[in-house]
């Protein structure tokens, strides 16, 4: 019997529920921790950003109007699929230089993080919303609403960091355009494959791989993006991106301290929520 040829994976982008190559036709080499060739990843261009924003905008209406319970169920389903891909994620993290136990622990933590956020879907409204006491015959209710399309520049932490920025953005009903970790984009594409096979509507999460410095400014200046998470942006680049984001008053989340294993809290969810307050007459 002849020796079997290996079937190698083509890493592509994830836009609107499909896996297209970059419009520009470019790719870049991803190496493992020892500098050996690992794969070619697509190098997205500004036009891929544009297409991804269109896809995210299209998906927003449907995703945001689902019941929080339903969104939670879909996110749990994503966690189930993540569990099924465990070995693939561990292999990819090990190729990135993590030791076997550390890689395994990170995958565990990422899945747990996803489940943790999934649970928040139907609870965040109770925590971030309120029945306000007012001096008049009214019910006065504040409820959190999703901002819209969120641009996310994901941090270097290839899986736990990525999950920790994507899950809180979408669980509340936003849709996301994510620029994956530049040095370690492969787990992001594998995550996209998980999302594509787990009832998450196409376009809710769009994943781009490529140069942050090239893509982030287009995301920050885009007039149809409502918020931007700068988690993976270097200190010196933050100011310019914030300036660009100010043009249409985007909500901006600056990079934090970067310890992704710490208890996350609700900040990443509330950062991309807006508050709607309704006055309703009593006794009419």
């Amino acid at each position, binding site marked *: 019997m002849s020796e079997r040829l290996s079937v190698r994976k083509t890493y592509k982008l994830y836009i609107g529920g499909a896996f297209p190559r970059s419009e520009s036709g470019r790719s870049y080499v991803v190496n493992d921790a020892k500098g050996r060739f690992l794969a070619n990843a697509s190098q997205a261009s500004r036009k891929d950003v544009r297409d991804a924003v269109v896809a995210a905008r299209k998906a927003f209406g449907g995703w945001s109007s689902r019941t929080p319970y339903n969104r939670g169920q879909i996110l749990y389903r994503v966690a189930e699929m993540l569990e099924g891909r465990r070995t693939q994620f561990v292999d990819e993290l090990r190729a990135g230089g993590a030791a076997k136990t550390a890689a395994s622990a990170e995958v565990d933590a990422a899945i747990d993080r996803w489940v943790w956020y999934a649970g928040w879907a139907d609870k965040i409204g109770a925590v971030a919303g309120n029945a306000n006491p007012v001096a008049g015959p009214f019910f006065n209710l504040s409820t959190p609403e999703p901002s819209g399309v969120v641009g996310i520049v994901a941090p270097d932490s290839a899986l736990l960091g990525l999950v920790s920025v994507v899950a809180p953005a979408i669980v509340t009903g936003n849709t996301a355009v994510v620029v994956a970790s530049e040095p370690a984009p492969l787990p992001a594409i594998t995550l996209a494959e998980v999302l594509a096979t787990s009832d998450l509507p196409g376009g809710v999460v769009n994943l781009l791989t490529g140069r942050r410095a090239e893509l982030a400014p*287009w995301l920050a200046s885009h*007039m149809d993006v409502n918020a931007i998470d700068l988690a993976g942006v270097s200190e010196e680049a933050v100011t310019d991106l914030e300036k660009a984001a100010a043009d249409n008053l985007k909500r901006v989340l600056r990079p934090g301290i970067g310890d992704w294993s710490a208890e996350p809290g609700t900040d990443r969810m509330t950062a991309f929520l807006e508050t709607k307050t309704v006055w309703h007459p009593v006794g009419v």
Partner: protein
Amino acid sequence: MPTGAELRAFLHGLPGVDQVGADERAARLGARSIKTTAKARAIDLAISMVDLTTLEGADTAGKVRALCAKAVRPDPAQPDAPKVGAVCVYPDLVEVAVDALQGSGIGVASVATAFPAGRAPLEAKLADTRAAVAAGASEIDMVIDRGAFLAGDYLKVHEEIVETRRACGDAHLKVILETGELRTYDNVRRASWLAMRAGADFIKTSTGKISPAATLPVTMIMLEAVRDFRDATGRTVGVKPAGGIRTTKDAIKYLVMVNEVAGPDWLTPDLFRLGASSLLNDLLMQRRKLATGVYSGPDHFTLD
């Protein structure tokens, strides 16, 4: 007035359309890359060619007035954006549109002749047309009787167009072929020649009410027809694709095709129009992207 036999002999004597070749050529012309300054010019030209259209059962006078305001000044943030070619409405709303567009130089086009089906007695169709013209419409978009055309009764179609042409008076007549119902490219070519012979000032692809509406190959065949018609008779007829043109990319493909097939003479709002409603916003978004360097979004433009 020709006889039915003459018309039939003429229309069936037209050379047949090579369907595969037509699709191929249209696809190839659609692949041209138009960038930077050429793109900016193409966008402005396309805006000036738009027949801004609202043809809904739910149209109100208010909606038509809003549409007219947009026609005069498409993008208030960019006063240098050109105004559109015309506003296209149902006959009963022509008066509102004429009133709103007074002094702007933008004409009002009205669909007539029992649009979109065209299934009404000739008298009703002509009354429809006369009412629209009396209300001030400067362009009339009529539909042909597709049933009669497909049954081979070319004379009836011809006579209806001639009668409508007479009812139009000074108003321009656009003849809608509704190519989506004509089935074959040969029929599109025949209907184009039939309409032009009967006195159409414009031939228009579709009502926009059925799918497929305007497509590139069909528009190409119509552009070939107006080119050949001018060579044969000296009279210049315009073309208007309508329906399904939503993006700037699509619009630019049509402009390239006009230039390549009919010739640069047709690259004017007097001889080429784009029947559309959502296209205008996409053109404006692209225009703003070119002007400001950042991508724009639909939130920043009016809905209608």
